[in-house]
């Protein structure tokens, strides 16, 4: 457990995530409170990152935006991972007709461009997190299914799986205790990738007005709003973009580190 936080990326990421999740209880400015008199004010002791076009505190808005991005992407990725892995493992282990069926359904989902699918759902069911999470999950289920299916196909041919069967183990035991741990590495890599992709997709949808609803802050909307005043106030555009980039880089580094930790072949010392 100690080793999980042994890299700089892990420490930075946990500071960011904890900070964002704790945003409502931290002594911050209200991200929705306007102060039109001080619109576009630069950084000051009261407002560390300055104020936006309505005079709202940028630092506080960034933190709240990050919070909703993490909550939405995290739950979407978890949902996608649970469903996708279950389908992939079942398809890879049981084989036969159900395998063909589930994989073809995944291919159909993969045919839709993610942004288009999300836009369709948002127009039909209305924008907002309650639409966004299931849509993002649906978009990313096939990627987990594919990774899980391919890994199961490799692992199930290993002699040690046959050895466990010969011990008289139930299918449940084989799936949960033998196969799932063996394919965890590639799934974690996929998870990092999917969280990062969902963060990007979520901000893209919010930018288009299909995601988080105003006035709640979101990184995408902040970029969208700052677009109009980009020449005069580049900072308002750069701040959410930079935060987005940093979070994604840190996520990828962290999951790479996690995969390394899960590999039993790494040296023990």
């Amino acid at each position, binding site marked *: 457990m100690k080793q999980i936080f042994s890299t700089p990326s892990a420490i930075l990421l946990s500071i960011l995530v904890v900070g964002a999740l704790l945003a409502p209880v931290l002594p911050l400015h209200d991200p929705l409170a306007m102060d039109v008199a001080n619109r576009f004010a630069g950084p000051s002791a009261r407002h560390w990152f300055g104020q936006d076009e309505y005079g709202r505190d940028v630092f506080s808005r960034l933190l709240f935006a990050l919070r909703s991005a993490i909550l939405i992407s995290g739950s979407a990725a978890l949902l996608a991972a649970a469903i996708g892995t279950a389908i992939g493992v079942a398809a890879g282990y049981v084989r036969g007709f159900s395998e063909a069926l589930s994989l073809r359904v995944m291919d159909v989902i993969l045919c839709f461009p993610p942004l288009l699918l999300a836009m369709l759902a948002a127009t039909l069911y209305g924008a907002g997190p309650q639409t966004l999470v299931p849509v993002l999950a649906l978009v990313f289920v096939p990627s987990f299914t594919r990774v899980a299916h391919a890994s199961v196909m490799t692992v199930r041919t*290993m*002699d*040690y799986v*046959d*050895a*466990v*069967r*010969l*011990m*008289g*183990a*139930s299918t449940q*035991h084989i799936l949960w205790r*033998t196969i799932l*741990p*063996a394919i965890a590495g590639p799934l974690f890599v996929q998870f990092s990738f999917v969280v990062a992709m969902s963060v990007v997709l979520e901000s893209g949808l919010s930018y288009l007005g299909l995601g988080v609803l105003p006035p709640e802050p979101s990184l995408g909307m902040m970029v969208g709003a700052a677009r109009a005043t980009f020449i005069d106030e580049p900072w308002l555009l750069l701040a959410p973009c930079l935060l987005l980039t940093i979070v994604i880089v840190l996520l990828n580094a962290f999951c790479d580190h996690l995969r390394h930790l899960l590999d*039993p*072949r790494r040296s*023990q010392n």
Partner: protein
Amino acid sequence: MTNVGSELLQVSDLAVSFNSGGDWRNVVRDVNFSVSAGETVAIVGESGSGKSVTSLALTRLLPADVTRVSGEAIFRGQNLFDLTEQQMEKVRGDRISMIFQEPMTSLNPVMTIGAQIAEAISVHRKVSRAEAKEEALAMMERVRIPSARTRFNEFPHQFSGGMRQRVMIAAALACKPDLLIADEPTTALDVTIQAQVIELIKELQAETGMGVIFITHDMGVVAEVADRTLVMYHGDVIETGSTLQIFDRPAKTYTRALLAAVPKLGSMNDAPAPLPYASFDLASGKMTPAPERPDTLRPDEPPLLEVEGATKRFDQPSPVLKRVISRVHAVENVTLTLRRGETLSIVGESGCGKSTTGRVITGLYDYQSGSVKLNGRELRSISAPDRAREIQMIFQDPYASLNPRLRVGEAITEPLRIHGLATREKEQAIAASLLERVGLKAEMASRYPHEFSGGQRQRICVARALVMKPSVIVADEAVSALDVTMKTQIVNLMMDLQQEMGLGFLFISHDMAVVERISHTVAVMYLGEIVEIGPRAAIFGNPAHPYTKRLLSAVPVPDPSLRGQRNPPPVLELNSPVRPRDYQPPERDYIEASPGHFVQVPGPEWA
């Protein structure tokens, strides 16, 4: 002995170091030898002895950034280590060629066979496409690939392992090299194919007068091919000399141990029962023959396993409509009985169905017809947990058969955990005692499998198979992947356990010499059927079926003075057990040649 001509390659003071994590580790030291035209030099040693590294260093195929090579290798007046990479490329494949161990992965799967041989020619010679094709065809004929012209445009997957190795040899010899380096070229092949490939290399050498460096761990092969032999141990050449001299008067203890460990066919002619190998103490060089022991077979007790007409076929559906178009007749009407304390060996070439038979008997595969009775109960009617207490299996590849995520102690006691049979403390005690029983240390329980060598892992697998105290153990090529000294130790361990626990072993192997040592009864399989079954002495002393005779004649004889006294086996493409959907297997008759020795009446294909 071949005609030995002028000196081709002179290696002096070759040393190789690898860089691992900043430290330079010396893996090969002070290698000195020479190869003359027409001469075969064998480099023997166990895995990790540095024999392959030596050959890779000579061809400069080791990654330059993490290896350091020193010494000299004078090849036709030039030091290979002084050449630039461009000059070396001209030498490699043209003057010096290599063949590798794995014929399945050393050919490009998306290029036709003919194109790959032609490519080997056109890389080094300025020839037109038509000329390259003609030469490639000539090469295919020279390596005796039947109907070369029609097979020119086929792909590697359409060739069997032995034929692929022939293709590799054709490509390697296409430019008529002066020196051929063969790195375990026959290790992945069946004995009959091995005999053919060795014969082919010898014939081609006699035709062209090339020098050959033959790298192998198999002393039987060394005796067949080599004029001179280098024995390597942990990176040192510990002994060199003519092959006759090494076999007759080995100077070093290790060489003696290596030779003593070589399974010899016929060494059991006078023994009434299976006999463990003599043990060898490397430090003192003393050989202790196995102690006298009573026969483990208990013929009066009820049999452990009765297989009656078991049949397993795999459907091959058509890709589009999933209709069955053909079937693999992997196990066809197999009948055998395993008694308490008996070792029954199933021998045959790869693809003959011996592994499938083992998997049917353990219940990993279901069977279509016939019956399999385990301790008197039909296998199908036994629940999985009960079956686990009666039959267990040891697999061929000790690297794939242990879960890399489980500590060794957890792996051994996993069956107990699955069935909730023991407390944590009890599990640890059981793991510790089993580890000691198989010759490891109790404290190794907390390590992971990747920290162990192949032989140690196989011991762990034996311990895991024992934890449920089964009465039958199926050992599927359990010692085939191990070095000779490891092999003898595992065989001895299995025989000791049999003595102690009255186990019945179903020993599946293609290694005839080990089979002769360990078995009470031998069954010979060919294309899914048992063609001959009987007491070990009858099968080895008086083989009756033509296939058994062919199999036995192909086993290399580890005695260089007997070389050339037997006929090379005929070049045959393996028949395939894939049959059309409506195929009815022929009725087979068996005759009893002597008590308990049954021989299938050979069908017309053996006429």
